[in-house]
């Protein structure tokens, strides 16, 4: 029993890390531009599929490095030609626009790569269990957790110590002033969008190894990411991270004791948080 709980706890941590990576990207974009990117899940799927296509040429490690960058580049293009047009308008329009994009991407991936999940090879050095007692501790799983932790730390470091990060943080608080101080906010928002999409692409590559990759993977991961943001509190990146891990672990543990509520539990947590603290656990007062 202990082993089963540990197994699910660890699984929950991994799934939570996916949620968090995706939700952090969503949060970054939303904080700076007020756009909820419904197509975020679509970019995640693209990341996974690009890695699948690149593996025969670049190998696992090469694909892991290149696929998220390519996804991010696609994000930059999409922002430049589509998303940019709805800044400053009613949030309704950004929702509808990215909603349509999500449809197009899901259908597009199905058209290019087929409706069935594609097999995704993880190097055998990573798949062997590290311990016979704790059979679930494969190298790949530990590697995923480690990589997610490194990416998240990298993101926070970038936001805290680099010039770009400082500008993103400042823009989140008051974009107009940042613009007046001579920062090109068009480029800033573009890069910020690309950064968010990079995280989605990275989550996609990692998820592909763990869950396999199929066209609907994006739409199945987007709702938990929303819940992570709501639970953690809008406007707070550490909150989003915490929210993602919390609901990942909570639904994994629920699957041990009451499997049919695996998905429902995250919404119960969300309802409880909204009841007690409408702005979310770490949300700033009066921001939304």
């Amino acid at each position, binding site marked *: 029993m202990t082993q089963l709980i540990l197994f699910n706890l660890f699984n929950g941590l991994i799934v939570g890390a996916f949620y968090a990576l995706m939700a952090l990207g969503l949060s970054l974009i939303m904080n700076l531009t007020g756009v909820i990117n419904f197509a975020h899940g679509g970019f995640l799927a693209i990341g996974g599929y690009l890695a699948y296509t690149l593996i025969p040429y670049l190998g696992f490690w090469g694909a892991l490095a290149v696929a998220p960058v390519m996804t991010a580049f696609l994000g930059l293009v999409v922002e430049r030609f589509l998303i940019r047009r*709805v800044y400053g308008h009613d949030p309704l329009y950004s*929702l509808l626009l990215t909603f349509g994009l999500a449809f197009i991407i899901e259908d597009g991936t199905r058209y290019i790569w087929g409706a069935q999940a594609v097999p995704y090879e993880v190097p055998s050095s990573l798949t062997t269990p590290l311990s016979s007692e704790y059979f679930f501790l494969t190298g790949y799983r530990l590697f995923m957790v480690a990589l997610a932790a490194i990416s998240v730390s990298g993101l926070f470091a970038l936001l805290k110590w680099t010039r770009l990060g400082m500008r993103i943080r400042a823009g989140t608080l008051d974009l107009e002033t940042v613009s007046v101080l001579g920062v090109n906010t068009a480029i800033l928002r573009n890069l910020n969008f690309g950064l968010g999409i990079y995280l989605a692409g990275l989550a996609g590559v990692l998820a592909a190894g763990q869950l396999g990759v199929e066209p609907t993977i994006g739409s199945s991961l987007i709702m938990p990411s929303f819940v992570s943001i709501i639970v953690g509190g809008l406007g707070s990146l550490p909150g989003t991270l915490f929210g993602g891990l919390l609901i990942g672990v909570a639904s994994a543990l629920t699957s041990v004791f009451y499997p049919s509520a695996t998905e*429902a539990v995250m919404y119960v947590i969300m309802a409880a948080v909204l009841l007690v603290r409408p702005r979310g656990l770490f949300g700033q007062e009066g921001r939304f």
Partner: protein
Amino acid sequence: MLNNGSLTRYAPSVIGWIVLVSLPEWINVVAYTDLGSRVVILGLAAMALNFLLGHTGVLSFGHAAYFGLGAYGAGLTLRYLAPSTGLAILVGTGVGMMAAMLIGPLIIRLRGVYFAMVTIAFGQIFYFIAFRWSTLTGGDDGLTNWSRQPINLGFATIDLKSPVAFYYLVLFVFAVATAIMAKLLNSPFGRSLLAIRENERRALFLGIPVNLRIWLSWTVSCGFASVAGAMYALLNNFVDPRTLHWSQSGAFVIMAVLGGMRSFWGPLIGAAIYVVLQDYLSSRTSNWMSLVGLVFVLVVLFFPRGVLGMLGRRTQA
């Protein structure tokens, strides 16, 4: 909304009703009667959403949940409770409205994007319940083995088997529902909703209990969405979890925007365009999903004010 009485104001509505009432007479030339029923039902759902979106100014992206609850309420009633179409519609509406009333207090304090996100997320609860509780709902395969029953009025029995008879039932429900919504919007209550849409802070200073009004508007809006959902279940004699899915919510929003969300009838026109387009595309190509997505993108980029907004008809709510 039709209160100044001039002929030019009445004319579009009269023409609209003539088109709707005569629909079974001409639709078979281009399509089939059930498509007409679908337009009217989804139009009602989009108008119900627009009660909140266009007239109260609150962005809900989770109306499919209440639409779907109405559908499951009706389907489950006919499957397990009693062979009564009327009861099925009432139960469906009651279930959807009750859920909205209960969820309302959790969300009415939120605004804008946040409100939209939370409504989407809450909608997913019902999706997963319908999906997981397969002994009751049939799960992913949907709820089957039931069908709409003749309505017994005491002095006469209306057989709903034929698509035309059912279309007129749909139109009757639609007429009653839209009449109530129009009446509500024209009442002082409706005016206070418009005040909230235009300037929430000012409405608050005028003594309008903003959160309470948004809660009422939300409940009314979701209630009519569940009426539409119940009718949708009866139309198909079938319900599946996709009725509850967030992509259906997005479809309602795009219908409202496509038709023009500042006008009362706009969403119906939006629904007509959307449903006919989707029906046509899905019969022609398996990639209809990207084409529908393209519609979303094009509407946002080029028709943000919708068809009626483009025509420049300044309808007062």
